[in-house]
């Protein structure tokens, strides 16, 4: 694994516009960064990253029924009690999950370690599935990388496959996100695109536009009943809002399904460590109020159970200091995870976002940051698989 500098394609912004990738920069600062890329060997991808992702997904699937059988754990994970049956029912009905993103620490030398699992509303999808794929095609044509350079990225195909498994021919599949978030809107458009390619009929609406009729069903702006809903909106917010209690009896099939809430909060990290201590792909982790947290000897990442994009994460005990990211989260409690600082490649710190789609390790997207906490200031860098020295 290595990081190399590479010339930008002179027309990359034009390419982005053509492909509908319009959120690549904020206030002049570019989120998409192709001045460098990461290179992996096929062995690193297959034996390390892909294998670890498959393994972790399996541990998570095994953990779900164990959590459901343990009320104390459900409480520790701050799952609202009125939703316990909804979640159990969705698991027992085998409601399918479409996707999730495992954030891994990987340095090319040691086994990948799970930082957290973005199981409900993972971000960075379009750039990983589409834009970095096009980058590789162009870069191979230009000749900056060998013509047989590859990429770990079948995300697009797997998304279409996933929708084919979840959707029903002839039934309308609704797609929703919150207003005011351009990136979310673009991500949802992309997913709608994939669903249409799986021969599904789709319709978009904002979360605020969802209505609830007298019979307790969710309806769209035209009063059509919402039978299938892809939501780019976290479960914990849905359940806490006014219509939350209507969800269990609505009959709507959600993507991601309700049982994903058990995996999408960081309490999962403590649960996994308790179930599978010393697993090579896990870091030690405990709930903040667990006496065993003392085993971390004062060196840990303190993470809010329901946090996003690194907000409110503190790295404690790193070189005798504390690094902290600001944010609004924390009221639901914290987990402590053993400190495993991101590896350093040219003074940048990459996190591997490993996508699990339609039941497969589907590909990776890499984000890097100068800082040791990956926040929404991180940049997305493309990668390639190159096995020959070049």
């Amino acid at each position, binding site marked *: 694994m290595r990081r190399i500098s590479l010339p930008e394609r002179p027309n990359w912004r034009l390419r982005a516009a053509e492909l509908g990738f319009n959120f690549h920069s904020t206030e002049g600062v570019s989120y998409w960064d192709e001045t460098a890329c990461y290179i992996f060997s096929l062995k690193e991808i297959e034996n390390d990253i892909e294998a670890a992702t498959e393994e972790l997904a399996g541990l998570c699937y095994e953990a779900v029924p164990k959590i459901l059988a343990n009320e104390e754990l459900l409480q520790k994970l701050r799952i609202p009690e009125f939703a316990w049956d909804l979640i159990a029912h969705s698991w027992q009905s085998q409601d399918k999950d479409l996707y999730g993103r495992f954030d891994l620490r990987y340095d090319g030398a040691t086994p990948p370690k799970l930082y957290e699992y973005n199981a409900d509303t993972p971000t960075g999808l379009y750039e990983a599935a589409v834009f970095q794929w096009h980058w590789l095609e162009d870069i191979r044509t230009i000749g900056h990388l060998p013509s047989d350079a590859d990429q770990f990225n079948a*995300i697009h195909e797997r998304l279409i496959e996933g929708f084919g498994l979840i959707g029903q021919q002839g039934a309308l599949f609704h797609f929703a996100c919150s207003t005011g978030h351009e990136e979310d809107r673009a991500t949802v458009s992309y997913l709608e695109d994939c669903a249409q390619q799986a021969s599904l009929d789709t319709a978009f609406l904002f979360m605020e536009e969802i209505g609830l009729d007298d*019979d307790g069903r969710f309806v769209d702006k035209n009063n059509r009943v919402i*039978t299938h809903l892809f939501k780019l909106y976290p479960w914990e917010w849905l359940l806490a809002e006014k219509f939350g209690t209507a969800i269990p009896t609505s009959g709507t099939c959600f993507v991601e399904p309700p049982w994903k809430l058990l995996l999408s909060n960081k309490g999962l990290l403590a649960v996994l460590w308790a179930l599978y201590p010393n697993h090579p792909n896990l870091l030690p982790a405990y709930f903040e109020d667990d006496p065993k947290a003392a085993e971390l000897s004062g060196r840990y990442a303190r993470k809010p159970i329901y946090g996003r994009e690194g907000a409110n994460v503190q790295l404690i005990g790193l070189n005798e200091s504390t690094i902290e990211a600001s944010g609004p989260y924390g009221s639901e409690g914290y987990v402590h995870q053993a400190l495993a600082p991101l590896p350093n490649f040219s003074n940048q710190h990459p996190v591997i976002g490993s996508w699990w789609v339609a039941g497969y390790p589907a590909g990776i997207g890499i984000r890097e940051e100068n800082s040791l906490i990956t926040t929404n200031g991180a940049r997305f860098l493309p990668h390639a698989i190159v096995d020959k020295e070049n």
Partner: protein
Amino acid sequence: MKRSRNIRLVLMGTVALTLSACDEQVPADVFETVNQCLADGRYSDSQCRDAITEAERKHLQQAPRYTALQDCETDYGTGKCQTAPPAPTDPQSSAQSNTQTNNQGGSFFMPFMAGYMMSQLLQPNRYAAQPLYRPAPGATNRPDLYTAAGNRVASGPGSTQVSRSALTAPSRPLVASRPVVNRGGFGATGRSYSSAT
């Protein structure tokens, strides 16, 4: 190879896909009853009967569905509606549902099939059949024959031309006829946070 062979986008981006066969016009024959088909003489006995059987099968899946009989009859006329069996798309039959009842405590309502159309498929001697519906005379619709998706086909029996896309099964979402009580019950948290993901 560890990456997708190809990436095609239909919604995103500026490269629009041309819809190929969907909008092509094809000839179709419209009948209100199987006897009209038999009397027409151009189709064999079995072709006529197979077609109406197929149309009736699709009718059960595709017909417009209403939660209230009154709303169905407003659109299609008094006495022109029947009870509908639950379709796979209704929330009632999803694994996740609890008891789903409407005001009448029963199932859903749909208009009777008013006729059907037959059109030759790409293979010789193979015909597709679609159910047709005739709305009650009203301000917005001529009381002609329409597909379940709302494509106008003809005013009555006879030969006509339809778009190829009208021959394929449309999605027919359930229309909730009860007035919606509430909106805005989701989304409040999203507005106060910088990111939902």
